């Protein structure tokens, strides 16, 4: 190859242009990085303030009777809060939990936890809706352990139910002894306190609940009062849906508050939602109620 160095006029321009390009790239990169740092720092600051404001809104809603609040916290942050009063307030309202994980206990009050006996549940049946709609296709069919606390006179009793939607686990020599449920027939849908249409994998009605001292007669309030239902999912990998519906035209006692809080600071917005069940029984209680045999406590 023969190089021609005779016609070198204008080469310096190319070199300088390349050099300029490099320098310009460095300038732009550094400037851009500085601006990004500054912007992200400001956004993070606003984001922290907005999150704290959203938390403040939740805290305030727990103590307030107002269902809508919009207030300024100072510090360039404000919160917008929408919350429910304690629900259910109407007959037929179905309590649905946000999806529940394995071994997590979900609790439903059948007697008013605030002691107003006029709100106590008067039925002796209730229906559990549980499992995700796609439980069969994902091969994650739930089993559920249900413990019902009953008060008769001054004595408390528990009745336990073990339900399994996977008949492969309930039959044969290695049966788990649970009650088999055939849930393949359809996916029941219902309106709940958190969804206008909520579809489940399984539905099972418990009851009529019998008198803990005499199984030949039904447990009817007020002499025989249903107090509490505690449930626990078993054999599942994902979180599953869970709801409890009262018998026709009856009302469950108010026990759930749903709060949605939006914290705003500058251009940053943080939304928090809380599903709160009041007066939750402490976890150690389960050691007693999830026992195999019924327990009497005087």
């Amino acid at each position, binding site marked *: 190859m023969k190089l021609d*160095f*005779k016609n*070198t006029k204008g080469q*310096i*321009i190319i070199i*300088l*242009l390349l*050099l*300029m390009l490099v*320098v*310009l790239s*460095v*300038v732009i990169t*550094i*400037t851009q*990085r*500085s601006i990004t*740092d*500054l912007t*992200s*720092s400001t956004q*993070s*600051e606003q984001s*922290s*303030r907005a999150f*704290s*404001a959203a*938390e*403040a*809104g*939740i*805290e*305030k809603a*727990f*103590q*307030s*009777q*107002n269902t809508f609040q919009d*207030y*300024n*916290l*100072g*510090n360039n*942050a404000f919160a917008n809060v929408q919350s429910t009063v304690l629900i259910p307030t109407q007959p037929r309202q179905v309590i649905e939990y946000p999806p529940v994980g394995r071994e997590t206990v979900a609790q439903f009050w059948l007697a008013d936890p605030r002691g107003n006996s006029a709100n106590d549940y008067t039925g002796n049946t209730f229906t559990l809706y549980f499992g995700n709609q796609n439980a069969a296709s994902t091969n994650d069919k739930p089993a559920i352990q249900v413990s019902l606390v009953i008060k008769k006179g001054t004595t408390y009793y528990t009745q336990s139910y073990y339900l399994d939607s996977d008949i492969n686990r309930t039959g044969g020599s290695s049966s788990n002894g649970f009650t088999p449920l055939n849930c393949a027939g359809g996916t029941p849908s219902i309106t709940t306190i958190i969804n206008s249409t909520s579809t489940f994998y399984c539905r099972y009605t418990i009851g009529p609940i019998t008198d803990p001292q005499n199984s030949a007669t039904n447990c009817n309030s007020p002499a025989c009062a249903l107090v509490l239902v505690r449930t626990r999912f078993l054999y599942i990998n994902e979180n599953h849906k869970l709801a409890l519906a009262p018998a026709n035209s009856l009302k469950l006692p108010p026990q759930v508050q749903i709060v949605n809080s939006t914290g705003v600071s500058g251009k940053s917005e943080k939304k928090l939602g*809380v599903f709160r069940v009041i007066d939750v029984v402490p976890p150690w209680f389960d050691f007693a109620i999830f026992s195999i045999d019924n327990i009497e406590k005087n």
Partner: protein
Amino acid sequence: MKQFLSKFLAQKGFSLVEIILLTGVVGMIILVVANIPNAINLVGSSKYESLAREIAAKTIADTRAKGFDALANNAPNGISINDSRVVKLPGGSANLIIEACPQEICSGGSGEENMVKKVTIQVSWKENSQAKDFSIVTLVSDGGLR
């Protein structure tokens, strides 16, 4: 190569275009050099602000975890926050101020002003002899978030 160099060195003066381009390059270099301290400052400042935010967020989480009953009013001065990261801020200090829920927020009745406290975290530090601070405000209620 030798031929090229001798020809290059034999050139007298610079063309107008070369001078303009060179001025441009020098200008860019000056811009870069001028930007570097600013960029370094911004990175440092961002680091301190991040640290301040982390201290404030952890203090709020700790305060909630202690529970409402453990919160005694200490406004206006507050108490110093015991976090080992505060010393990493130049001239740093951090305060936790607890006060009753202000009337403009807790005016709903039902004694909510006694069930809610206003919690302010203030983190201050110095940067290039300038005072900087980050503060965050929230509410903590009886039986509230943990």
